Each structure stands twice: as C-alpha cells, then as structure tokens.
C-alpha cells in the first residue's frame, strides 16, 4: 500500500504537466510561449518576497545564536518534564515552526541518538509530520502580496501551533502506548 501511494505521488507532477500541455495544445495555445510569459513573472515575485525572508531569518538566526532559544527551551523542559513528554520532542516542537532545515537536522539527530523505535523518535516524527514552518510560510505568503496589516493572524498561527504540538504529543502517546 505504501509503495502504491509513493508511486502515485511521484506520478502527480509529470502527469499534471503532460495534461496541461496537451490540453493547452488542443485549445490552440502556443504552450512554449505561454510558459515563457508566465515564467517571466517569477523573478519579480521572488524579489518582492526576499526582503521579508531576510527580515524574518535575521531574527530567527539571532534568536538561536544569542542563547535566548536555549533558555526558552529549558523553560519548556521543566514545564513538560512532569507530563511525561520526552525532552527531545520539546526541542522538536520549538524548532519546527522556526526553521525547516534545522528541524530536519534535529529530527535525524534524535532518531540517531534515541533509536528509531523509541517514544522520543516517534513523537518527534509525528510533530515533524504534523507541524509546519510557520514563520517561513508567513514571510513568504504575506511578502508575496505586500501585506502590512496582518490583524490577528500571527497570534492565531502561534496558538494553533501550540495546540498542534499538544495534539501531536497526546496522539502519539495514545497510539503507541495505549
């Protein structure tokens, strides 16, 4: 079942491209010229996003490098330790919204040191799979259209992230320990 789904997801983009090109040709579109015209928009969009990405990345990297991140993590450790949540999973929960590459590195490290079948690894896996790099998504999507007034979006995303982590922890415990 796994391999069938995996194959399907490999197939999606090539098939989608093929269908788009064939449909366009049937509808008498010069697909090559059309693609070029569309691709021309790419650079201006990325140029628009770049300052937003830069701004958020400087804050995130600085937050990690200054030691503030470690203090935040330690505070969470003591808070979660008595709830029976492995400390590795707490790290995962804090890193995931901030950085995609850092969370992948951390996840690999947890699996390596705690063992792939440990509760810590499984809990981190569920967090890794069910949480998103919130700050990146916010910077890119808001930057793309130059939104300055975000109203209550940021608090909603942060609260949703927190709930998401708790849900991931509860689901993992229930699924693997019950």
């Amino acid at each position, binding site marked *: 079942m*796994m391999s069938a*789904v995996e194959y399907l*997801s490999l197939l999606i*983009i090539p098939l*989608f491209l093929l269908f*788009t090109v064939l*449909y*366009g040709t049937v509808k008498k*579109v010069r697909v090559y010229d*059309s693609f070029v015209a*569309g*691709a*021309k928009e*790419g*650079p201006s*969009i990325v140029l628009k*996003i770049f300052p937003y*990405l*830069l701004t958020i*990345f*400087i*804050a*995130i*990297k*600085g*937050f*990690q*490098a*200054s*030691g*503030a991140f470690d203090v935040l993590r330690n505070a969470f450790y003591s808070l979660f330790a008595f709830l029976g949540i492995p400390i590795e999973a707490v790290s995962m929960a804090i890193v995931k919204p901030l950085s995609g590459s850092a969370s*992948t590195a951390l996840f*690999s490290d947890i*699996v390596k040191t705690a063992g792939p*079948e440990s509760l810590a*690894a499984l809990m981190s*896996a*569920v967090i*890794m*799979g*069910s*949480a998103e790099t*919130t700050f990146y*998504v916010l910077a*890119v999507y*808001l930057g793309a*259209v*130059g*939104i*300055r007034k975000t*109203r209550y*979006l*940021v608090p909603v995303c942060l609260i*949703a992230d927190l*709930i*998401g982590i708790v*849900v*991931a922890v509860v*689901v993992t415990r229930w*699924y693997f320990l019950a």
Partner: protein
Amino acid sequence: MNVLWLIMICVSVVFAIFTGRLEAYTQSIFDGAKAAVEISLFLLGIVSVWMGITRILEDSGLIYRIAHLFKPLISRLFRNIPGDHPSITAITLNVLANLFGLGNAATPLGIKAMQELDGLNQDQGAITPEMMTFIVINTASIQLIPFSVIGILAGFGHGNPAVVVLPVLIATAISAMTALLVLALFRRVFR
C-alpha cells in the same frame, strides 16, 4: 508581525550581551542573510516554473474549469470568492500539493493563490479573511504521507517506518480543525 519581530530582536541582543555570545550573534545576522539569499534563489527557480505552468492553465481556460469544479468544496471555507475565480484553482492545487507532500510545488501555488486573493482585496496592504483562512490552512500542514519523516526513520533502521502514517494523519487533521476553530473564534471577538 511588527511586535513579534521587535520582541525577537530585543530579547536576542539582551541575551547575547548577558551570555557573552555577542560574536556568535553578529555572525548569525550574516548567516540569516545568507540563508535568505539561498532560499530566494531556490524559490526563483521553482516559482518561475509554476508561474509558467499556471500561465498555460490560464491561456487554455483550464484554470476556470478546475475552479468551477472545486467551487462547491472551497466555498465552504472561503465564502466571498466569486464563481469561477482563478484563486479557487490556485487554492485547490496548493491544498492537493500539500496533501501529497509536494512542498516544492505547494509554495509557488500558494504564492499564486495569495496574488489571486489580493486581486479581490479592496484595501491593498491589509489582510482579508480569505487570506487568513488560506494561511492558517497552510501552517496547519495537512499531509497524507510524510515521506521525508518516513525516509529518515527508515534510514536509521526502523523496521516498519510506515507506522507513523496514521498518527501523523490523525494529529494533522485534529490540529487543522482546531486551527480553523481558533481563527473563527478570533474573527468573532475582533469583528
């Protein structure tokens, strides 16, 4: 965003001073700048590719047909999008790409969706309820099969890495629904 950024910068600098990590902090600013450039270069490629593909969809009219097809589904979450608007297609494709774990396709399609939604925006620079719903759905990360996670578990010798598929799916579904619930709650309070 403004308050969050301000807090992060202030807290970081104060901590850097007290922990004696000023040098590391300064270095991190350059690291952050470098990471932003690298990711932007990466985005430049994939965003341009998807802009090319969606232009063919537009020119052939396929984008309006897909929009028409998914309108009933999408309009439950996004009430104020008119009939065959292209944003419906962009949102649909973004959600599908997310479901199948195609992150590289999801981001450019999401950008396209935001642009289409901005076309409906009366007050440029301010966010619309539709944009908020869209971003919240994206940050909740709905995914059928977390391939990268399974890959790493398998790489370190887990006997049956696919065991995480079901709990991930359950966790994502619950957190996506609660995220929309939180958004609805804030919407009611801050009307």
